[in-house]
């Protein structure tokens, strides 16, 4: 209890001191909150980059394989139809003898049988040799050096994910095989390299994490974004123009407004249920198609675009409209000739942000079947791109996160890096647009 009256201002009383300490504490809480938020951001980003950058590198092994004519082309006439009859399985012996050869010339010193040694390369190696032979039958009879993907475990060994201790109970790889890996590494035949296939390739089966890539799902996402852009932008702008410029103030427009702001907050999975029930079950559009994904994401993005478009229409001052009306333009002309162009940068910014949101959305896609490992090639045409089954970037990441082999986790983090690069680019473009064209009235 202090009476402030008649006290010198230069003397700080105890109560004020106490209050000032409370003040400092309060500020510290605030700073701490911000610090926690930013720390979380840093931890998240460091985790993503730290665990995902490995996906952009892959271990390759160069092996000289002798393409024995007797096994591949018994008739010796190089007839493509005959060549195709030799299945992937038939290429196995070639690979094994290639490794036997490496043991014979001393590159590999081991007691393991050739079949075990071949376990250090990807299961896709035979198919790789077969594809090369089918593409160029003249290779038959020669010894060709192939760059095989090392198996996921070997790749993990080079990246430090797999160690001799961790494989004690692992059926897929043994310590002896790792010895071979070490020998090949010293010989310079086995090394980590930049992995373009991760960015351009398709997903691979559970047994071949080393071959899985994001490329095809990126194409799926691209087609979905195309659908969203083509539908959501014009519909969103039209709806906003009506609500902002023409709508009378009555209960119908009130309902529409409340509806839009509510739709913006409806959980995304509900839109997935809607897509499943309406587009797939009722309208019989194809399952897993980017068209359906795009339609669902359009409905989800529309409220966002409408809200931001209305804000930018609202920021155009009424004097512009009055000026156009004053020279005899119709209301429609004043909007389309004057207001809309002035609001365009804001609309564009809002649209890009809406697209970025849609690009990262996963839940609704799971319900309409857009999960990983559906398409092994990119589509050939626009129609096929829209209608043939595909995945999308976030759904592909989810698919990898669910698989048992930790090698896929690295791919999931790597996929996140790619996804975030897209999102950051889109947001940066939006920010630049805003900076460049922002107008203060």
């Amino acid at each position, binding site marked *: *209890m*202090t*009476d*402030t*009256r008649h006290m*010198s*201002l*230069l003397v*700080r*009383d105890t*109560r*004020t001191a106490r*209050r*000032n300490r409370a003040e400092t504490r309060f500020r510290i809480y605030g700073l701490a909150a911000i610090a926690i938020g930013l720390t979380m951001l840093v931890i998240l980003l460091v985790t993503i980059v730290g665990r995902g950058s490995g996906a952009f590198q892959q271990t390759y092994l160069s092996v000289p394989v002798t393409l024995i004519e007797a096994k591949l082309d018994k008739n010796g006439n190089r007839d493509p139809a005959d060549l195709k009859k030799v299945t992937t399985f038939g290429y196995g012996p070639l690979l094994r003898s290639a490794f036997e050869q490496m043991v014979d010339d001393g590159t590999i010193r081991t007691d393991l049988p050739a079949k075990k040694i071949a376990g250090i390369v990807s299961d896709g190696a035979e198919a790789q040799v077969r594809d090369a032979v089918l593409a160029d039958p003249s290779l038959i009879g020669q010894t060709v050096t192939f760059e095989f993907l090392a198996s996921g475990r070997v790749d993990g060994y080079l990246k430090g994910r797999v160690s001799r201790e961790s494989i004690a109970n692992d059926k897929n790889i043994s310590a002896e095989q790792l010895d071979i890996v070490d020998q090949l590494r010293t010989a310079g035949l086995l090394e980590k390299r930049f992995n373009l296939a991760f960015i351009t390739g398709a997903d691979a089966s559970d047994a071949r994490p080393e071959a899985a890539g994001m490329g095809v799902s990126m194409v799926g996402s691209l087609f979905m974004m195309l659908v969203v852009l083509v539908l959501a932008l014009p519909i969103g702008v039209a709806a906003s123009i009506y609500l902002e410029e023409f709508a009378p103030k009555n209960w119908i427009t009130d309902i529409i407004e409340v509806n839009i702001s509510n739709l913006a907050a409806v959980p995304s999975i509900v839109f997935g249920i809607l897509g499943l029930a309406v587009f797939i079950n009722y309208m019989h559009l194809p399952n897993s198609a980017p068209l359906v994904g795009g339609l669902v994401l359009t409905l989800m993005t529309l409220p966002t675009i409408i809200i931001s478009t209305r804000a930018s229409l609202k920021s155009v001052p009424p004097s512009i409209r009055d000026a156009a009306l004053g020279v005899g333009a119709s209301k429609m002309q004043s909007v389309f000739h004057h207001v809309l162009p002035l609001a365009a940068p804001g609309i564009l910014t809002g649209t890009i942000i809406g697209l970025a949101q849609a690009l990262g959305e996963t839940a609704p896609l799971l319900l309409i079947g857009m999960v990983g490992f559906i398409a092994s090639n990119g589509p050939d045409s626009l129609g096929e791109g829209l209608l043939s089954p595909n995945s999308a970037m976030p759904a592909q990441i989810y698919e990898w996160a669910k698989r048992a082999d930790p090698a896929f986790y690295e791919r999931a983090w790597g996929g996140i890096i790619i996804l975030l690069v897209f999102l950051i680019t889109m947001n940066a473009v939006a920010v630049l647009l805003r900076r460049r064209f922002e107008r203060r009235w």
Partner: protein
Amino acid sequence: MFDNTTKPEALVSKTSKISTRNVQVYYGETHAIKDVNVEIEDKTVTAFIGPSGCGKSTFLRCINRMNDTIESCRVKGDIRIDGEDIYDPKVDPVQLRAKVGMVFQKPNPFPKSIYDNVAYGPRIHGLSRNKAELDGIVERALRRAAIWNEVKDRLQAPGTGLSGGQQQRLCIARAVATEPEVLLMDEPCSALDPIATAQVEELIDELRQQYSVVIVTHSMQQAARVSQRTAFFHLGHLVEFGDTDRIFTSPEDPRTESYITGRIG
């Protein structure tokens, strides 16, 4: 009183409550207040008049360091209350504002009950030992602000529910509840109707018994009605300062005369 009131040096008197020397205020690059020297006496109503943007409100807000809350604002020069420099690093603006209360242009009651509005200051400054004492402080403040009879039956009703004039008197009650020595009023009647204005003006006259009141006003009539001393500001300068009667009857500076006769402002 002295005759030569435009020269503040000559006005050093025992009753001077606030004295300023060469006060300059800058808003970023703008020089808003230029070289103001003024002596404000205790138990007197001093009016600051002048055209819009002349700096009278800015200067008023320097006296309790409200300008501290504005980022770009810098104050230079010397402002003393009871001889103590209020811009001294040792001075806590919180303590200062308890001693120099303020009433604003627009009534700004907190969205709380009438009672809590008035009790807010005494509570944060710890002026009461118990509830009964606080009740006493609140009642005294409301009585002094001449609003007790209107609100005594609804002290728990929200302060925002009162009429404009009542709200402003509530704000005055809130300001006097902390027992300040100086009361700054920034156009306290500009948002009020004539009847409410008359009530507040009457109140200001009564407050003079205990406080040194400084009022910024747009209305020359109001300055003439409520104040004993008047300062005329123009473009950041203090043009003329003296007894209200004299300023309005025989201004010395031609600018003051133009303003009073309605040619500028």
